[in-house]
């Protein structure tokens, strides 16, 4: 039998998966070398969504970079806002001077963004595995979270909420009650989603033992976030290098064993619960007070002050036209994005614009390992693996 096969002239099938393919969303291309349904080799090509984010930032003021950061990982835009603001504030040296309420609200918003991101990611993964109804359960949960974000800053997707030295607006009236109402519904949806999938044999077979990666390889590739924790490494920036209020909060970091897609799924499912827990803790002890740092050279004074006090007007004008003056230096603040470590490396020469704005996107490191993770697997295994990596074109290609 084996000999007959040797005589036949066969050659591997070269398959171009993407960028225009339902699973790759126009953002990435897999050049596959296939033996029937088996993947012999997978070449990952990124860059289809490159917009020149870093160069954009260098051509606007420090404040004008916020809308661009929204468009990196648009599922959790506020986390990018916060990461950028934290790096800029470190350069300014005002990290300890931030008002308590501002830090608390930022933490809440970061966790809301994480909820939205995980809901979208898990929902989309099930959608691509064919379970459309489960997908819409989590889309509903995400919409409810976006309702909350909308009530805070007016935008659902690209929030543009955080500012250097403060926030755009304070939380609205009745935010607590709204959050309680949303979480009650989201817990129900979580249970339904869990029932539909976690013990579903088909889902298990599709997720388990696919896209697995070892602890060592995960670290070597620079994995962070749920994918690294799924491989068994207990590393969460919120615990390892606490920022905002995370040091004072009581929450658990789920860690997996196998590094396969099912563990990644379970970790995201658990992180949803933990984020809800964090937000509920914060809402019970939300400090009162200002949301902006009291420094008109950094954070614009109020509109009333601008219209009545001359100094305020001058600051407003200078901040808007020239940009906030950030002292020369460089800074990097790692934060735990929904997908892994997000950090902005900012370099200032003392002007109103960033000299350099480099973002560390988590999914870039994850996407590198695609080829290894699907090597020898079936064509269908690309789908859950790629979904659990959660490549966001906007973030990976910048």
């Amino acid at each position: 039998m084996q000999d007959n096969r040797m005589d036949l002239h066969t050659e591997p099938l070269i398959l171009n998966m993407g960028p225009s393919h339902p699973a790759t969303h126009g953002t990435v291309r897999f050049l596959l070398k296939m033996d029937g349904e088996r993947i012999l080799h997978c070449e990952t090509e990124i860059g289809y969504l490159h917009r020149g984010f870093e160069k954009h930032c260098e051509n606007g003021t420090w404040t004008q970079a916020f809308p661009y950061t929204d468009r990196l990982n648009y599922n959790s835009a506020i986390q990018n806002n916060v990461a950028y603001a934290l790096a800029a504030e470190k350069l300014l040296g005002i990290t300890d001077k931030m008002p308590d309420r501002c830090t608390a609200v930022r933490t809440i918003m970061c966790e809301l963004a994480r909820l939205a991101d995980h809901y979208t990611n898990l929902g989309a993964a099930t959608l691509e595995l064919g379970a459309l109804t489960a997908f819409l359960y989590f889309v509903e949960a995400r919409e409810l979270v976006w309702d909350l974000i909308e009530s805070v800053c007016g935008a659902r997707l690209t929030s543009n909420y955080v500012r250097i030295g403060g926030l755009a607006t304070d939380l609205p009236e009745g935010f607590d009650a709204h959050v309680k109402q949303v979480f009650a519904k989201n817990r129900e949806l979580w249970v339904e989603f869990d029932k539909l999938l976690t013990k579903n044999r088909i889902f298990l077979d599709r997720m388990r033992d696919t896209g697995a990666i070892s602890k060592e390889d995960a670290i070597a590739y620079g994995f962070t976030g749920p994918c690294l924790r799924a491989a068994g490494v207990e590393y969460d920036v919120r615990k390892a290098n606490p920022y905002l209020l995370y040091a004072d909060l009581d929450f658990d970091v789920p860690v997996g064993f196998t590094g396969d897609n099912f563990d990644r799924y379970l970790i995201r499912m658990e992180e949803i619960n933990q984020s809800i827990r964090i937000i509920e803790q914060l809402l019970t002890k939300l400090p009162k007070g200002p949301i902006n740092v009291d420094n008109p050279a950094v954070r614009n004074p109020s509109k009333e002050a601008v219209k009545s006090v001359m100094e305020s007007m001058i600051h407003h004008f200078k901040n808007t036209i020239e940009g906030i003056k950030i002292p020369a230096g460089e800074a990097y603040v790692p934060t735990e994005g929904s997908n892994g470590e997000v950090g902005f490396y900012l370099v200032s020469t003392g002007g109103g614009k960033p000299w350099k704005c480099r973002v560390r996107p988590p999914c870039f490191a994850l996407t590198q390992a695609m080829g290894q993770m699907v090597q020898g697997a079936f064509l269908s295994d690309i789908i859950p693996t790629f979904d659990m990596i959660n490549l966001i074109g906007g973030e990976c290609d910048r």
Partner: protein
Amino acid sequence: MFDYTYLPEMNLIPYLAEMMVKIVFIFSMNMGVFAPLLGWVERKQSALMQDRIGANRADIFGFTVFGLLHTLTDAIKLLTKEDFIPRGADRTLHYLAPFIAVVPALVAFAVIPFGGQYELWGHKANLVIADLDVGMLYIFAVASVGTYGAVIAGWASNNNWSLLGGIRVGAQMLSYEVAMGLTLVGIFMVYGTLRMTEIGAAQENFFHWGIFLQPVGFFLFIACALAENKRTPFDIPEAESELIAGYFTEYSGLKFAMFWMAEFLEMVTISAVLVALFFGGWQIPFVSHQMLADFFGFLGPNLAQVVTMLIHVGVFWAKVCLWIFILMLIRWTLPRFRYDQVMKLGWKIILPLALINIAVTGAVILLVR
């Protein structure tokens, strides 16, 4: 095949008229009601399951009729779309494939009885288009012809994704046809016939329904039937997130619609087979043909038979609709298998279980006798 021996005794004209009425009825049920309406049902049912509103945009003077007009707009769209044939495709086969897919789906219904036998004005009406003694085997045979449509479509499109889809169809259909045949052997042993009308008639007693006599066979058959239908969780040949649209990636317009229609018609046929074999066909539980006829006896013997017939036909289609509903429920709930998992399920789980089922059924029949 036909029981021609009794032909000379009867009048040919009423026989042909009856035949025509039955064919027109089944054809219009399938092509006029189910094929277009299932698209609407699928939209609305999935919307209901997913907390959405579903199709409600198309309107005539503001009347949307629960989104039913989408059926009409779909038809207009599909008829007016460009009929695209990719470069390098085999034009003849590309044209032929959708026909090979849709025709078997249509003709498979011929042997399924949608009612019993009724004595109307001295004419004996048998509510099945072709009362073949090979019954179910005919459906297997025809269904396997339908597979060629998908395989040829995958081959003729000159597209790697279509080709992969075509290979998957071939493998999946081949595996599950074997298993499906074996899952039903138990039913044939229990009823001692392959003729669908006789199986239907044998289920007049509620406790003799196939589901009670062959529960294991039922579950195995429904798994195979879902696989034959190529819908989630067995939709690997057209898995849209992997193969774009699988074997019909390169089809557009009415040719695409024919694949779509074939899928829906197969769903109707599967539901009808399920009803005919396992759920008593046209029979109503605890209400026999004679009881119904007696109940409507005040209308006179002929009209009573007509009313009985209408009730039976209605019951049959109601059961079919219920099964379509359940099949759609499954389709919208479960994720899809992987290629190797489908093969494993077919060959390593369903096939052995079906064989055990046959052995156990045989033993039980021997014991009972």
